[in-house]
């Protein structure tokens, strides 16, 4: 069978049952290691043939539609049965979420609400209950979609991810993690183990908003997150991040710096939102046009800033 690009794709019929589905899943070997050392062994043994998966909510459609390419002899390594990657922990002022924690658990965790409420607000608007019950934040980040809704809240929270391979652990700021659509700094053999989020300061407020083509179960046309810290009536620290308007989720640092030392009056809010929108380069696709995305980016940043302002006064 060939796909629209003329590339050969795998097609298998089920022994003992007829083929169902738009495109069958290929022959593969499934592994569910229970510990991190077992997992690292599997990666070592199978090398590039091993693909790490968690909830599979994006992986299964990606394999079916041919978006995910691989050579025959695929080994799927499921990390969701590993206890160490399934915890939400707090260490003083740091929230540490395992890469295999489901979105539902993030949404319902009192620790997430206390440490990073803006993340909970974003997760609440992601996909459906059924998907949130299996999908993970690690998966959302590793698939590196420009529209990943967990990315803008993590960017404004100065979050980091822990990557591990045979040589050891590396910590990477989420701001440096994405390199392009579907691409990140992760190298073959490397896996994400945890996402670390510093606790939001008492004098800070953060907001997240997204716009899609409908209100539920939708990929963002534009998403925005903002975190503002105020002192003495002026903006002391600012973080502004946008999703779906560039090849990766992005921080708009020019707009952030613009706010420094300024009061959050209507004029400043408006100018800042305009700067954020002009700093990004969205594309036109089947969900929205580039122009519409720029307009909406401005509106969402403005609304987020106003929400923070309201919260802080």
């Amino acid at each position, binding site marked *: 069978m060939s796909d629209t690009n003329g590339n050969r794709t795998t097609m*298998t019929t089920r022994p003992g049952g007829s083929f169902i589905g738009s495109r069958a899943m290929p022959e593969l*070997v499934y592994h569910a290691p229970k510990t991190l050392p077992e997992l690292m062994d599997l990666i070592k043994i199978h090398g590039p043939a091993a693909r790490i998966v968690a909830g599979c909510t994006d992986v299964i459609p990606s394999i079916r539609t041919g978006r995910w390419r691989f050579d025959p002899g695929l080994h799927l390594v499921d990390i969701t049965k590993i206890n160490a990657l399934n915890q939400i922990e707090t260490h003083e002022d740091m929230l540490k979420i395992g890469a295999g924690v489901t979105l539902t658990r993030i949404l319902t965790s009192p620790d997430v609400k206390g440490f990073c409420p803006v993340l909970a607000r974003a997760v609440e608007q992601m996909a459906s209950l059924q998907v949130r019950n299996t999908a993970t934040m690690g998966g959302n980040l590793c698939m590196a979609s420009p529209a990943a809704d967990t990315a803008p809240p993590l960017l404004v929270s100065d979050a980091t991810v822990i990557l591990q391979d045979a040589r050891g652990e590396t910590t990477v700021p989420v701001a440096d993690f994405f390199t392009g659509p579907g691409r990140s700094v992760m190298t073959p053999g490397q896996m994400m183990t945890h996402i670390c989020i510093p606790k939001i300061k008492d004098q800070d407020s953060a907001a997240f908003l997204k716009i899609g083509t409908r209100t*539920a179960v939708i990929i963002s046309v534009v998403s925005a997150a903002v975190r503002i810290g105020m002192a003495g009536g002026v903006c002391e620290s600012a973080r502004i991040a946008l999703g779906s308007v560039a090849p990766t989720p992005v921080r708009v640092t020019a707009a952030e710096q613009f706010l420094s030392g300024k009061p959050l009056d209507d004029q400043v809010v408006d100018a800042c939102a305009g700067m954020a929108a002009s700093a990004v380069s969205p594309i036109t696709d089947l969900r929205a046009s580039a122009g519409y995305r720029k307009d909406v980016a401005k509106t969402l940043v403005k609304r987020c800033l106003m929400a923070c302002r309201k919260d802080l006064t």
Partner: protein
Amino acid sequence: MKIPLTFVLNNQETTLMIDPGQTLLEVLRGQGGMTSVHRSCEEGECGACTVLLDDEPVNACLVLAASVQGASVMTSEGLVKDGTPHPLMKAFTDELGIQCGFCTPGMLMNAYALIRKAGDTELTDAVIRKTLEGNLCRCTGYVNIVKSVKTAQKLKMAGEWW
């Protein structure tokens, strides 16, 4: 190469021979014979294949069957007791929450989990709609579906439930 999958299907321990690449949807409909699990979009948009995995609703099309080893799976077939429809099913038929019926098994499983979790807290329209946002009904029968869920919860509170 086929592998054995042992799990609890509608309260019965079951072993099926599966292909590691098969989704839970394919296995439930195929080897499992549970044809109430409807195949539709196969990418988690419609909810027609919703089943309970360890009591939580999931899209069977987005779960690898091999990953439910040792877990408990419930389909709407499991709601029927000795040939008698579950009170939740009765509520859906009484309130006309069912039209063509294609989305119904998925709606039932999501609603079943919701009502069970809600306990004595009366479900509001907003909560029901938010919970069922991943279940599409193309007969546009949402008003009656919300009504059905509320009626079903009343039946549960009146003790008519299993």
